[in-house]
């Protein structure tokens, strides 16, 4: 019996949804009303769709990056921290550099990607020098990134908001200049197609091609599947893993800088600017089984849940329901995929 294929997929998604529905029913809510709110809030009208697409862009970027690192065997689980580092660097560049107009947006995004790429690459360095597990160091560094952002936005000589007149400065940075903000691609009545989504889709396609068609992608996949064989074939597993980590960190950082510049945030660096996009991106990559192209629909689904989740409160169902749904979906996809591979040929 195969445990992949569309029918199996449909069955486990249905199981996760039924379980979530049971949870609502048992706690006295109405599953039908919750479903209606989720659909209405995410794809119900042009405004809702715009909101969903806004969420999809950073989720997609993080997930595509997570595919790279997971495939190379250098398993990065610190995306949440890398998103924060990207937002931090993006804010520093956007507020400190005197670059005019739309060029500033490019600088902000690049700064975020570069900083977070370097931040993630540190884990590869620590692994190479002292054999520190990459998953462990990326996880621990997430908490350092959180504190770094908290420090930057509460320290006046770093990025804390300048005080005008009375009132204490809040733990946040100044607003990014308008030239650095992500605008809409084309004008449609009601529907906002944010530039961020275009960037994310292009990146996803590029990474998919790079993984499938280039020498780098081949080496990366080989290093992940069998590091010993890869080493015998003359591939530097450490260097390939380092590059994969740097790419996955850079994409998470790009997502962070994008959050800062997108209408999703207040365009100020705040300690919670990452809104769990990093953790969600990791789950998306797991569901998509590290296939960059598959992350596109899954990221769309997660964006639907996020956008729709905001509308749940009106039905009396706590918005945390969407977190349960996301975790159940991931569990449903992760477990059977591996059970299938149980027979091992030595």
């Amino acid at each position: 019996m195969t445990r992949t294929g569309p029918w199996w997929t449909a069955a486990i998604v249905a199981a996760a949804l039924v379980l979530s529905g049971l949870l609502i029913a048992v706690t006295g809510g109405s599953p039908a009303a919750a479903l209606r709110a989720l659909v209405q809030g995410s794809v119900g009208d042009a405004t809702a769709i715009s909101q969903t697409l806004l969420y999809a862009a950073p989720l997609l970027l993080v997930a595509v990056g997570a595919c790279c690192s997971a495939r190379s065997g250098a398993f990065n689980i610190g995306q949440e921290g890398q998103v924060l580092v990207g937002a931090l660097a993006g804010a520093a560049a956007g507020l400190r550099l005197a670059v005019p107009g739309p060029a500033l947006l490019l600088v902000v995004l690049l700064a975020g990607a570069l900083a977070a790429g370097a931040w993630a690459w540190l884990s590869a360095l620590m692994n190479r020098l002292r054999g520190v597990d990459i998953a462990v160091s990326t996880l621990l560094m997430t908490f350092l990134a959180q504190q770094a952002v908290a420090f930057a936005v509460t320290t006046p000589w770093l990025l804390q908001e300048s005080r005008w007149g009375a009132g204490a400065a809040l733990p946040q940075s100044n607003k990014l200049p308008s030239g650095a903000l992500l605008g809409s691609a084309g004008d449609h009545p009601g529907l906002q197609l944010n530039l961020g989504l275009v960037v994310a889709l292009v990146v996803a396609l590029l990474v998919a091609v790079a993984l499938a068609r280039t020498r780098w992608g081949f080496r990366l996949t080989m290093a992940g599947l069998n590091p010993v064989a890869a080493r015998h074939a003359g591939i530097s597993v450490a260097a390939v893993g380092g590059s994969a980590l740097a790419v996955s960190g850079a994409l998470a950082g790009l997502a962070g800088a994008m959050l800062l510049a997108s209408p999703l945030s207040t365009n100020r660096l705040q300690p919670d600017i990452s809104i769990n996009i990093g953790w969600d991106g990791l789950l998306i990559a797991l569901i998509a089984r590290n296939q960059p192209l598959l992350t596109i629909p899954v990221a769309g689904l997660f964006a639907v849940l996020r956008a729709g989740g905001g509308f749940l409160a009106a039905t009396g169902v706590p918005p945390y329901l969407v977190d349960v749904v996301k975790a159940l979906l991931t569990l449903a996809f992760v477990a059977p995929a591996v059970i299938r591979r149980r027979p091992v040929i030595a």
Partner: protein
Amino acid sequence: MSDVAVDLATVLSSGIRLAAPLAFAACGEYVAERAGTLNVSVEAMMLGAAFGSIAVADLTGSATVGLLAGVSLGALVGSVHGALSHRWHVDTFVVGLVLNALVLGLTSYLVTVGDLGRHQVAQVSVPVLRDLPVLGAPLFVERWPVYLLLALVPLTWWLVERSRWGLELRAAGENPEAADMNGIRVNLRRRQALLWCGCLAGLGGAYLAVGEVGSFNQNMTAGRGYLVIAAVIFGGWRLGRTLAGCALFGLADALRLALPALGYTVNSQLLVSAPYLLALLAMLLFSTRRRRPGALAQPFRRLS
């Protein structure tokens, strides 16, 4: 007592209260890691147990029954983790992160729906000793589960270092292939270690809820599970140093909370990040790798 002594006693007692949940969970995480599982779901175990203990205490009216329910919920998370990663060989980090997400979502959901009251286990103060200067109040006036540490720490040490079970468990973490050839059921030992981890992490989480705070709020463990992982790494996979790490992290947290009130300025971000920095530095600077279980975080599958 002088002012300094009073301040010291305050910081010390809050440090012990902050360190105790970490110490319980660290005893569990230590066993799981010696058996070869880098168990990230310790956060889920603690959070689930914290919620379960208050919820069951609410149902039964007894905080002690709540505490036991917390322990069994931790064990439940441990057995799910064990089944997924040591029966079906799903990557342990993946299982851990998904379980953390699931438990965080579920508890946040349920606590919003339900209306949970306050429940707290009794306080015990040891006569005579509690009157000692400085150390008396922090050490000898506590909620009673704290004193379980006095039994559980030596028991954990004995189980891992001196019992046959512990020997097999360490073999499973060190060299699963060799252990397997000697007839040790590697994955069974690892699942059992995870169960022990779940019980103790559950106790830590339940202690936090029905012991220290007396109620549950959303994401109340707030990353303490990750702190426990940092403590085991900082301790170089030795039980004593791991517990010293817990004490240090608890004290750092207490200082962060107490120092501003005592009129000192303190960089709270540095104190919060200290455990993670120390764990990273310990891995970078000291030769902890010699004590690191050889097959840590690697699933074991018998070659057929």
